[in-house]
């Protein structure tokens, strides 16, 4: 979240979207999320679902195979799916990290840490309005409100922890190998391989809770505020009215006909 609205650099609009008219009467289409970020988001959704489901089986094999071992590969398949989804989420993470440095102002790394006094006050105001239902007291944001942003930042760090603990366990099968060399420092640091396993297993439970609350709040914001945030993760942006005032956005910073202006 960016604190000051005055000195914001012009929003970048990619060439393939630059020709679409952006102003419809009172409404302006604001481009928030670059294509890499949106792709990363949905790739992560699918891999995280896979990782949680297969991870739960690895942690507690809740059904079994009868008969001869030679005719089954149940755990083998679950682990394979887990490691495949792990590789995919690592790729998504790499894209996201790259985008932290080249993305727009809503995507760049400073946006992950809304910790200015004004932002922290807004965290409090958002929290208060969630609990009191006083929606009219809630500050408005084009991007994420700082409370939501803090939740997403947390999920990024939790996922980083899952990747590090996961690959540290993965490396155990080949001591001295690639993953063991890169992630082998972890077990001694946290007090042994079992501790790594426990951390990996415990952090799983962050995801169901996060998904529940995240999806709920996104849908709620859309149906109560009619803000269009849900579709923004598909289309990349949302319409804002020139009558609205936002904490993180000033309509007058927008070029009135951005598709005519030289982008970038």
């Amino acid at each position: 979240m960016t604190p000051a609205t005055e000195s914001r650099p012009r929003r970048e609009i990619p060439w393939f979207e630059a020709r679409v008219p952006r102003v419809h009467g009172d409404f302006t289409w604001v481009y928030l999320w670059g294509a890499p970020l949106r792709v990363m988001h949905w790739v992560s959704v699918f891999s995280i679902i896979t990782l949680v489901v297969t991870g739960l089986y690895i942690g507690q094999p809740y059904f079994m195979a009868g008969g001869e071992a030679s005719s089954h590969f149940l755990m083998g398949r679950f682990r394979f799916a887990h490691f495949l989804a792990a590789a995919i989420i690592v790729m998504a993470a790499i894209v996201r990290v790259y985008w932290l440095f080249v993305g727009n102002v809503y995507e760049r790394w400073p946006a992950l840490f809304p910790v200015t006094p004004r932002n922290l006050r807004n965290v409090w105001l958002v929290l208060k309005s969630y609990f009191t239902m006083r929606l009219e007291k809630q500050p408005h944001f084009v991007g994420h409100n700082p409370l939501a942003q803090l939740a997403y930042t947390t999920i990024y760090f939790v996922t980083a922890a899952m990747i590090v603990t996961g690959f540290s366990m993965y490396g155990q099968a080949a001591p001295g190998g690639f993953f063991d060399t890169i992630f082998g420092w972890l077990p001694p640091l946290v007090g042994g391989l079992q501790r790594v396993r426990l951390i990996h297993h415990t952090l799983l439970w962050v995801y169901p809770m996060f998904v529940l609350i995240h999806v709920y709040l996104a849908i709620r914001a859309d149906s109560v505020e009619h803000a269009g945030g849900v579709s923004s993760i598909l289309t990349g942006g949302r319409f804002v009215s020139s009558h609205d005032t936002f904490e993180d956005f000033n309509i007058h910073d927008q070029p009135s006909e951005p598709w005519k202006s030289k982008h970038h």
Partner: protein
Amino acid sequence: MFVRNAEPWMDGSSLGEHLEETGVSRRSFLEFCTEMAVILGLGSAAAPSVAKALESQARPTVIWLEMQECTGCVESTLRTEAPTIGNLLLDVVSLDYSETLMAAAGHAAEKAKADAMAKNKGKYVLVVTGSVPTKEDGMYCTVAGRTIRQHLEEAAEGAAAIIALGACAHWGSVQAARPNPTGAVGVRDIIKNKPIVNIAGCPPIGDVVTATVVHFLTFGRLPAVDREGRPLFAYGNRIHDQCSRRAHFDAGQYVESFDDEGARKGWCLYEMGCKGPATYSPCPIVQWNQRTNWPIGAGHPCIGCTEPYFWDTMAPFYNRLPNVSGFGVEHRIDTIGASLAVGAAAGVAAHATMTVMHQIRRRKAHQTPDSGSTSGEERNNG
């Protein structure tokens, strides 16, 4: 190879001469060398070189210090297949000081040790079992009126290399488990300036000890070790990756109680708390008691005794994951996680209900023809 104890290995004669004197056949000696070469990962082709190196060895000196321990390591090492470690260390290598094995006692024993150390300064191998108590100036373990720490420091001074035998000698094992009343530590916490090899296990397998000694005699140095100081030839692989029950793990076939169908069929012990997936040890291959069997082979989950501080880090032995304390009763993490997730779902449901009720109330209050539409003002207010 069986070596009778009757003929002690005299100073000055080589191992080859000594074996000849004792009447050990060339064949059984070569068998032994082949076995050692294989355990060391050198391959059976290396057996002649091992034999050649061993034959020409002069009698080395070994001092064996038993500190705060249970003697289980000595018991285990005596059960090496061929030659038994008793033979290897008493006759082949010769032990100048070992409280459990030597005949001498009292002042004579202490004198033998002092003499051996003085005479072979800088050359002898020091084998250590047990941990060193550090609390109360180490008074929890004393021998001949001095603390074991003093004995250790003195013996380590002139040692060429130190073999830390067993979990106690490297990590303090059960004595160092929380709350560690004697302040027990391993040798490496006291002695910093000598090469130390960590023969991990509670106790370790006898053959691994023998092979390490053979390595030292053959190459004149300790074997290559891993991050924890354990010889790679023995501790280079996870139990889980060498386990005879692994096919059942991959298939998804698990023992759920010690008397169920799966247990009878020899299924995987994962759900019984097996620590094989976190433990490096040659147990599945080298096995125990003359290759009779090993814990998982006998139907008991691995407790991870070759891993650092295993009494604390691998507990509870019959659960896959460590307990999470601080929640009153000790719960499985899944119970806690699932409760939190259900709590979150309930919170979301409650909040959604309140939001809907609130919206309905607001709409009723604003009953105008325009209500429900998204005029700018309406949206702006929420």
